[in-house]
């Protein structure tokens, strides 16, 4: 058996060498390609043709493109790239292949519409996507909800938002808060309460982890905004009474105006900046806040809005 053993040994050794080499080379190839497969999305001029060519496997292909869309967004987000030019075509192809993939429309509403770096900054494309979704899924109240969202948050078009929520509320299985939201739009559009209601409802109804995380970040931001506004009122009051601005928030506690130094949604106490204004301890971890940032603060390129951040 000696000759045979020699062959076995050589072949086994060569196999291991080749396997290792193939893995190493693969990693290099992936680096060179780096998203080239995704770039090809730009060349698919007709998603409808793709659907026809997929010969009945369009559902599977839709899932593959959906996975690619999610990974694309996550990847670009982690790079801090600040632009997501392939997100729209990816979602368009996904929804053409499977028009009933509701989560794809929701993802588009949440991440296509907002301005960079939180999203692709294409609210019109987002609206187009969701409206296509509504055409294919006329009984899906969630899509009307998303539509209203885009109008309210990104376009500040309260009338449009009211119309969308109202249309959605008319559907047979609509979630009751759609009616409430429609009413809120009509009367209290620009108010804090309305915004909070919107984000809380988004958080409560979303299944996709990224959308939930995004909503949670918005809810925290709203909380911060209100806290900071309230604290600013107290510091003004203190200044009026004491004749000089407080040195720190502990002064307010000493003066009996506060029971303790309040903490932000992340658990860090608020503090007073050198300019006498209330600030958060860690603005990088609180995206979307409008108040409480130190002067000259530049938000990071990679806002912490996803669960993996």
């Amino acid at each position, binding site marked *: *058996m*000696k*000759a*045979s053993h020699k062959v076995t040994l050589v072949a086994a050794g060569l196999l291991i060498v080749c396997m290792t080499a193939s893995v190493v080379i693969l990693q290099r190839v992936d680096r060179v390609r780096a998203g080239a497969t995704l770039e090809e999305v730009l060349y698919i001029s007709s998603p409808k043709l793709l659907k026809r060519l997929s010969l009945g496997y369009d559902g599977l292909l839709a899932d593959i493109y959906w996975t690619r869309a999610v990974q694309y967004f996550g990847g670009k987000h982690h790079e801090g790239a600040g632009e997501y030019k392939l997100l729209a075509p990816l979602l368009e192809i996904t929804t053409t292949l499977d028009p009933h993939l509701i989560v794809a429309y929701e993802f588009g509403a949440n991440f296509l519409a907002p301005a960079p770096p939180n999203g692709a900054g294409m609210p019109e494309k987002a609206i187009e996507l969701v409206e296509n979704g509504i055409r294919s899924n006329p009984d899906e109240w969630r899509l009307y909800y998303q539509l209203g969202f885009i109008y309210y948050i990104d376009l500040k078009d309260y009338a449009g938002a009211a119309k969308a929520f109202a249309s959605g509320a008319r559907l047979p299985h609509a979630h009751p808060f759609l009616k409430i939201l429609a009413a809120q739009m009509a009367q209290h559009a620009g108010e804090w309460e309305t915004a909070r209601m919107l984000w809380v409802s988004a958080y409560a109804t979303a299944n996709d982890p990224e959308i939930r995380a995004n909503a949670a970040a918005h809810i925290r931001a709203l909380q911060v905004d209100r806290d900071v506004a309230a604290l600013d009122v107290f510091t003004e009051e203190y200044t009026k009474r004491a004749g000089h601005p407080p040195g720190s928030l502990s002064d307010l506690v000493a003066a009996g105006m506060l029971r303790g130094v309040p903490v932000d949604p992340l658990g860090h106490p608020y503090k007073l900046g050198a300019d006498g204004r209330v600030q958060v301890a860690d603005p990088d971890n609180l995206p979307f806040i409008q108040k409480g940032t130190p002067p000259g603060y530049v938000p990071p390129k990679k806002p912490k809005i996803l669960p993996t951040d």
Partner: protein
Amino acid sequence: MPAIEILGLEKTYEVGFWRKRPKRALHPLNLSVEEGEIFGFLGPNGAGKTTTLKLLMGLARPTAGAARILGMENDDPRVKAQIGFLPEQPYFYDYLTARELLRYYAHLSGVPSGEIANKVSAMLERVGLPTSAADVQLRKFSKGMMQRVGIAQAILHDPKVVFLDEPMSGLDPVGRREVRDLIERLKQEGKTVFFSTHILSDAEALCDRVAILHLGELRSVGAVAELTAGVRGKVELIWAGTTIPASLKALGAECHATSDSVRAILPEEKQEAAIEALKRERLRLISLVPLRSTLEDYFVQQVEQAKPAQAMAVRS
């Protein structure tokens, strides 16, 4: 140095899908064949002859044991250049012509390129394939012609030892005679021939020694004459008339009656008693001929002996 040495070669297969049961195709076999011998490897179907040949050729791996050919391990590549093999019911690349096939094999066997053309032509002639057939695709060949091609590829590189598995199968009587002559010629050329068959008359005529294999076990080995000598002989009695005396039947005679005579075969030692019986019945004896015991008798005897053992094996 023996041409072929089989040392405890054994093969067990695992059969069955879920619970694998071992099936012994070949019990440990010990055999040795001298150079220049024509050795017959006999046995009924399923005895393990083809398994043995496959093990010798390295086509299957033995569960235990080893084999040596011309003093070297049987899977040594140097050995392969010196042996020729004709498998049972051979099938060759049917899109090739006979000439192309033989040239391909000649190349693979390491025959020097310059000699190939001549060797192939000589070989085609030797196995009795007409030149007109040489350039016809093998898919058009009859079984007999295929068999001849098979023998040609087995000997074309002038091997020292030739292994043939059922070389006569598919041949008409003329063809069988030709193959027998060919095998004798091989012996005259000093080659060793190891062939398996279940046609005993061929083995009896050709072989120096035979081995009988049954159910994977070697039953006996030896020269034909030695083996058949041990078998009790028979005599053939023919008498006139159609009467079959009871006493003859009692002696264990097999009787066949024709229109005017009866032919009986009985063991040799009973012949005196039989003649006496015929005399008593006043039947006229026409002929008394001793029958030479054949290899077939011996063979059947060996196989019959194995039956009780076989039955026991099956039960266990």
